[in-house]
């Protein structure tokens, strides 16, 4: 029996359809990454699965327990960490953990013992006796996850665990999640970061506008989006359009090239990579265009997302022109690998 099953989940808020029939399941001891831009419906799906929201249609089960019909039984099996660290900052770390243990109906002794274990596991033992108000953002997130895990839930939900964290805390959080995965925790992770889904999830569900638009492992999703890419970087933005026109001749039929003005680059999926770099360079040279770099690379999840949705995963809103990317959003650039 899968740990989590979602079947045809629907939810509307007034006129907005937040979810229009979402299906997925999570096998035990695996990580499902729910990937999508802001407002795609990720959090709505998590709130339904964690009994915080009643679906308008569809059903969901945790360990075979219907979350709508028997919410309290379902709650006994889940741990939830939302987008903001839900800790009581007036208490110490230890007291926060102890409180959750007690509300999961452990004996006082068991709650104390488990609280100590969790502090140790999440490297909070030194801070455990201090009031949470003085904790750093990263420490709060760790405490938050520790609180969600203290009762050994059969499924842990992490809703955008690294959103708003600085790069260092983000790496730290990845280490924590790696540890959970190594321990065999069943995990649902939502994220708007492709690299995060790729790195942490066994299986990825891509959601956009409340619908699942793709599902599979990172490798399968990449395979779906076609073959390798040629990426040309220019010194001069003005020539981007001409380069795109030239590259179209090398492209796989029916696949559009991507123009990234911020990175001054044009990317195009190609049918074959054989002798592609010299050919591209020659044709650009013939056209008298100055080139900084030409590389061949494997598709990233960012390419997959762009191809599936017409906009990038990390755009806050789908823009009119999918090639326009906020230059401040450095994370939006595909990482060459």
């Amino acid at each position: 029996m899968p740990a989590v099953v979602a079947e045809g989940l629907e939810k509307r808020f007034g006129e907005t359809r937040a979810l229009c029939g979402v299906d997925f399941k999570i096998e035990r001891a695996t990580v499902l990454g729910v990937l999508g831009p802001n407002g795609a419906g990720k959090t709505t799906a998590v709130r339904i699965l964690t009994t915080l929201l009643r679906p308008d249609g569809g059903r969901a089960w945790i360990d075979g327990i219907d979350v709508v019909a028997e919410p309290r039984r379902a709650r006994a099996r889940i741990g939830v960490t939302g987008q903001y660290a839900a800790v009581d900052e007036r208490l110490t770390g230890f007291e926060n953990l102890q409180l959750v243990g007690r509300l999961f109906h452990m004996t006082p002794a068991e709650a104390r013992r488990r609280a100590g274990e969790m502090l140790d596991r999440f490297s909070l033992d030194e801070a455990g006796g201090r009031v949470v108000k003085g904790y750093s953002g990263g420490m709060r997130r760790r405490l938050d996850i520790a609180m969600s895990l203290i009762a050994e839930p059969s499924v842990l939900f992490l809703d955008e665990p690294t959103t708003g964290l600085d790069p260092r805390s983000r790496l730290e959080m990845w280490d924590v999640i790696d540890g959970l995965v190594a321990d065999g925790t069943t995990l649902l992770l939502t994220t708007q970061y492709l690299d995060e889904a790729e790195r942490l999830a066994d299986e990825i569900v891509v959601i956009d506008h409340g619908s699942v638009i793709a599902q599979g492992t990172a490798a399968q999703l990449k395979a779906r989006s076609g073959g390798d890419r040629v990426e040309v970087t220019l010194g001069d933005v003005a020539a981007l359009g001409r380069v795109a026109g030239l590259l179209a001749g090398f492209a796989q039929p029916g696949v559009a090239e991507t123009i990234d003005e911020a990175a001054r680059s044009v990317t195009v999926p190609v049918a074959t990579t054989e002798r592609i770099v010299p050919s591209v360079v020659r044709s650009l040279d013939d056209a008298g265009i100055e080139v900084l770099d030409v590389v061949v690379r494997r598709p990233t999840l960012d390419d997959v997302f762009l191809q599936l949705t017409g906009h990038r995963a990390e755009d806050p809103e789908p823009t009119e022109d999918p090639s326009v990317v906020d230059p401040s959003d450095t994370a939006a650039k595909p990482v060459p690998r």
Partner: protein
Amino acid sequence: MSTAADSSPTSGERVVPNGPVWLFRDTATEATRHLIATWRNPDLLVFAAIQPIMFVVLFVYVFGGSIAVPGFASYEQFVVPGIFAQTVVFGSAFTSIGIAEDMSKGFIDRLRTMPMYPSAVLIGRTVSDLMRNLFTFVIMLAVGLLVGFRLEGGLGAGLVATLLLLGFAYAFSWIQAYIGLSVRSVEAANSAGFIWMFPLTFVSSAFVPTESMPGWLQPIAVNNPFTIVTNATRALYNGSPPGNDLWVAIAWAIGIIVVFATMSFRKYSATSG
């Protein structure tokens, strides 16, 4: 609702207990959370105590000389019970602020995803605020006694009056709980919780006799439940018979608790949307 007995014993299975003992335990756990926090931040308690002390001293010494209330030996015998009543009712505003704080920080959502009794969250909160109010009351009583207020009705009647006051304040905590669950921010809870309590407590018999108010205001002041509870406690503290006021005040308290606790439980459990 199923019990622990029929759930399969897979890993991490926790009992989902039912029954009053577990409700009590969840409530005690939640109340303890707030009491520890209050203990940690004694400055809040100090401020909670300073205001009523100031009120007692200001009213007794500033107005005491110029206001004579017929039927009372001194203004303090009249006004101190009114200040008691106002202070404990104002104290209930901590409930809306506290709940709004828990909501805005996502803590309520965490509690909503745990297998505890949902009602324990609100009962634990209101009970811990009642304890805080009791603490404030004790300080106020001591200051009252220092400035010359006396329990003319004796200890027994004084105890009944005190219980009535705290019970009425507890009822108001449930109004505040509903407000705290309804507003979107702590700031909003702060205003929405306090603002209506000024007319409520001033258009009443707490500080001046209602007969001294303009004619159009008198019916409002006389029928104000706050007037009724003030009159009942004032009579008890001063050793005169409270008459019907006592029963009407108790009925108000029970009525408010029933209505607002029901509404608050619904609001809390209603999964948003």
